[in-house]
């Protein structure tokens, strides 16, 4: 009887050691993090409003404040094992990554995985995120190091292949993912034809409007056929994987899909975080833009606008 009791106690202690965060409830020490997070949320919204309007004034100041807050949040999380904080921090980094795909942010995230009180599934989940973010930032040479230091899942490594040539800072605007004749995934960077008028549709698979448009294209492959050059562009930090893009290319005949290879090399008027948004580009300049996909009638508006702009340019 006594040994059975001891076994139960040992097992309980072992499980607590195995998963300490699962036992920590909501703690008072989290209150300070919530205040910081409110501030982070407000400043993040302000940053995107400025970026969307193309106003660079004040962005640098906001950047410094946001990085200060993310550092503070990270410090507090390492001292407060409240189980709500890791998710909040992860969301904050993911949001900041939309704008800043740099080593400074990724180092903060590495420190978070190393020092916060996380469960084993959380460590795996956040390690996978870290690997994916490095891939999206095109830090291809760092992927093997991340793989060695963190428990990255094999399916994530397989989903984001590193055997192609595209380093951070490249001027090639597009990263194209397609299957070859033997159904192997091929990734290649490409540039945009600067001389012709093009529509670049910024979309993402997580966006309901973008998905409606893609479904419409699947049922009607001729939807955009009067437009000579239209490319469906996914942001660098898209939820879509290279396989998703290759599958779309295979499913929708004649449509061109690509990731933005390096968002900062695109015209400054391009905003990669509103879906869907259609940019009319010529000579590396945005000459017109249209937002949204309220219904399939939007295709006619795009076709008409393209025809008018093309006529004017010719």
């Amino acid at each position: 009887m006594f040994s059975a009791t001891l076994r139960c106690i040992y097992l309980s202690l072992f499980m607590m050691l195995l998963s300490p965060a699962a036992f920590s409830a909501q703690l008072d020490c989290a209150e300070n993090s919530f205040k910081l997070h409110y501030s982070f949320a407000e400043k993040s919204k302000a940053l995107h409003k400025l970026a969307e309007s193309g106003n660079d004034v004040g962005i640098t100041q906001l950047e410094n404040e946001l990085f200060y807050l993310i550092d503070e949040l990270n410090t507090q999380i390492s001292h407060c094992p409240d189980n709500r904080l890791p998710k909040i921090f992860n969301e904050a980094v993911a949001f900041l990554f939309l704008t800043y795909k740099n080593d400074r942010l990724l180092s903060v995230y590495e420190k978070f995985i190393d020092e916060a009180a996380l469960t084993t599934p959380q460590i795996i989940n956040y390690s996978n995120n870290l690997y994916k973010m490095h891939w999206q930032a095109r830090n291809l040479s760092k992927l093997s190091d991340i793989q060695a230091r963190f428990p990255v899942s094999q399916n994530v490594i397989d989903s984001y292949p590193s055997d192609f040539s595209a380093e951070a800072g490249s001027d090639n605007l597009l990263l194209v993912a397609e299957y070859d004749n033997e159904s192997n995934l091929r990734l290649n960077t490409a540039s945009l034809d600067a001389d012709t008028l093009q529509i670049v549709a910024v979309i993402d698979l997580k966006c309901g409007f973008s998905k409606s448009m893609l479904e419409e294209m699947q049922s009607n492959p001729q939807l955009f056929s009067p437009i000579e050059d239209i490319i469906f562009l996914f942001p660098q930090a898209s939820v879509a994987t290279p396989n998703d893009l290759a599958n779309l290319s295979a499913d929708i005949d004649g449509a061109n899909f690509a990731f933005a290879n390096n968002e900062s090399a695109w015209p400054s008027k391009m905003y990669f975080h509103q879906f869907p948004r259609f940019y009319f580009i010529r000579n590396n300049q945005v000459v017109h833009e249209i937002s949204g996909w309220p219904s399939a009638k939007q295709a006619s508006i795009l076709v008409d606008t393209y025809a008018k702009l093309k006529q004017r340019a010719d």
Partner: protein
Amino acid sequence: MSKFKLALLGTVTVFFASVLISSNTAVAQQAQHADSINIYESQIHNPEELRVYMDVTPRKDNPLMKLSEAGRYTFINGLMWASNGVGSLNTYPLKIELSTNQAKEVLTLFGLQDLTTKIMKDNASGDMFNEAPSGDISPALHHCTVLEGYRCQLPASCTASYTDICMACLCGAQQEK
């Protein structure tokens, strides 16, 4: 403490530890695929109806009063109204200030009760593991794709906005007849 009590304590601890761990995993797995929800018939469809509701509803019956003044201001100020309901909303005050049941009561006012699981999925307080009360079951009006970290930008697009959720079906998309 007797041997029997020790044995009972050990067993109870192991049981709750197992429930906690298995529930966390189940919630995480469910949440991975929860990117669309049903929208239900609701009490409040526009800012005017919200104003009237706040004026006439006794404090104890008003789930928004469970929020702090700052949280309530942030939540109400974050509601973006489209022609037929809430196009996007800031769920952060609900996430950090309310229990799952309280958050569901707030969201039900706007027909968005299905968002509860999505926004509270990692909020592992004790009540997380009980189903929030369903209350009266309203008819579902639409099935709606939702996007976290974005707000509604009329017409029919979602733009990045931290802590907001964009409701694709209510943000200027034309419903199919």
